[in-house]
């Protein structure tokens, strides 16, 4: 059976794409964010996952309001990044792990998560940037399965439901008949709000408590309704749903997690950023 080796998390602010393109990683503004990655690059180099399951939210590239799935699972051989309208350079396509996609889809439907399936989907910066951040050399040595969670149009799925979805994905990974090593990845957050008079809202205390909870008390944030999460973390801070799903998958691996590395930095663009790597104890 496949082995679930750990989980990754990173913010995915589009401006990161511009910084990478310009080579700004070591400038004073960007260094505190990019310095989070070398310890995780070393860990990935040692553990060498073959596949990454990415929990992310589409920002209006692949999905429009005409058809807006709550949960969608990619089942494509390749995922292409494309023009998103504001000029960040498109990154290289991601290779799909189709066999695992269908095993996850079959498992999820069996566990009563009635997901949308996508054999053809564009992926936006929320998929392309994390891969580039964790594998800056490019020519990615991993295949992927993207799992999209709606944060565009309310009602959003509950925090508890996203955590349960993650658990089911973790169970799927561990029952996949393959000898490959798999990691899960959360893309997004932490607290930020782009729209409205409350634009620029950041909640450091909540973010730090959330990050801490992911190590030892992963169900902590599931006590909050989505409305409460918007209030506490901002309209885009609800992207922490991705982190809950990622952590749910690790819970399915059992015996807890140990932290490889974590980083929290305010601000990049309008966002409180976090970067995290957790290793399973199995």
């Amino acid at each position, binding site marked *: 059976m496949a082995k679930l080796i750990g989980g990754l998390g990173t913010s995915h602010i589009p401006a990161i794409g511009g910084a990478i393109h310009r080579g700004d990683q070591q400038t004073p503004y960007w260094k505190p964010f990019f310095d989070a990655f070398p310890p995780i690059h070393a860990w990935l180099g040692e553990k060498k996952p073959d596949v990454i399951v990415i929990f992310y939210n589409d920002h209006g590239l692949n999905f429009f*309001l005409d058809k807006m799935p709550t949960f969608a699972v990619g089942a494509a051989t390749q995922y292409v990044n494309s023009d998103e309208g*504001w*000029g960040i350079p498109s990154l290289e396509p991601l290779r799909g792990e189709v066999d695992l996609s269908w095993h996850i889809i079959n498992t999820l439907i069996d566990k009563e998560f009635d997901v949308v399936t996508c054999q053809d989907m564009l992926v936006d910066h929320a998929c392309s940037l994390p891969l580039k951040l964790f594998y800056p050399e490019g020519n990615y040595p991993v295949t992927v399965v993207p799992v999209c969670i709606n944060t565009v149009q309310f009602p959003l799925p509950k925090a508890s439901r996203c955590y349960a979805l993650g658990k089911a994905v973790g169970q799927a990974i561990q029952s996949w008949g393959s000898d490959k090593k798999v990691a899960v990845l959360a893309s997004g957050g932490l607290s930020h709000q782009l729209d*409205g008079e409350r634009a620029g809202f950041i909640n*450091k205390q909540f973010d730090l408590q959330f990050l801490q909870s992911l190590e030892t008390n992963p169900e902590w944030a599931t006590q909050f309704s989505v409305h409460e999460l918007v209030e506490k973390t901002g309209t885009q801070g609800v992207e922490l749903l991705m982190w809950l799903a990622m952590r749910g998958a690790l819970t399915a691996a059992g015996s807890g997690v140990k932290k490889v590395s974590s980083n929290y930095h305010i601000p990049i663009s309008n966002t409180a950023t976090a970067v995290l790597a957790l290793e399973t104890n199995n």
Partner: protein
Amino acid sequence: MTFELPSIPGTTPFDGNQAKKGYALNKMCFSFNDEANRQAFVADEEGYMKQYGLNEQQAAAIRARNVLQLIAAGGNAYYLAKFAGIFKLDMQDIGAQQTGMSKDAFKAKLVAANNQPGLQ
């Protein structure tokens, strides 16, 4: 059972009411993923808005480049960002406009969030 929720100051969750109200506006902004469409909009703003069936409130908000008015007209932050991209506005420009601050003051406010207390 009611799905009405208490309001959060300065915040408009993009719910069914907003989605219904803003459909034409958001559909136009979604089209700006394509460079050819961005150019077509720049070449003939009024004609482009007409093609997507924007109502007068939406068209006025587009003409004014006013983000709060666009949200009031049903605009969604993610699609509106593609409209803002045509004018090379970044998120600090947009944040400054919505909060009535200068861009420098808005950026300083973001940095000042570091001064919030950490874990108790």
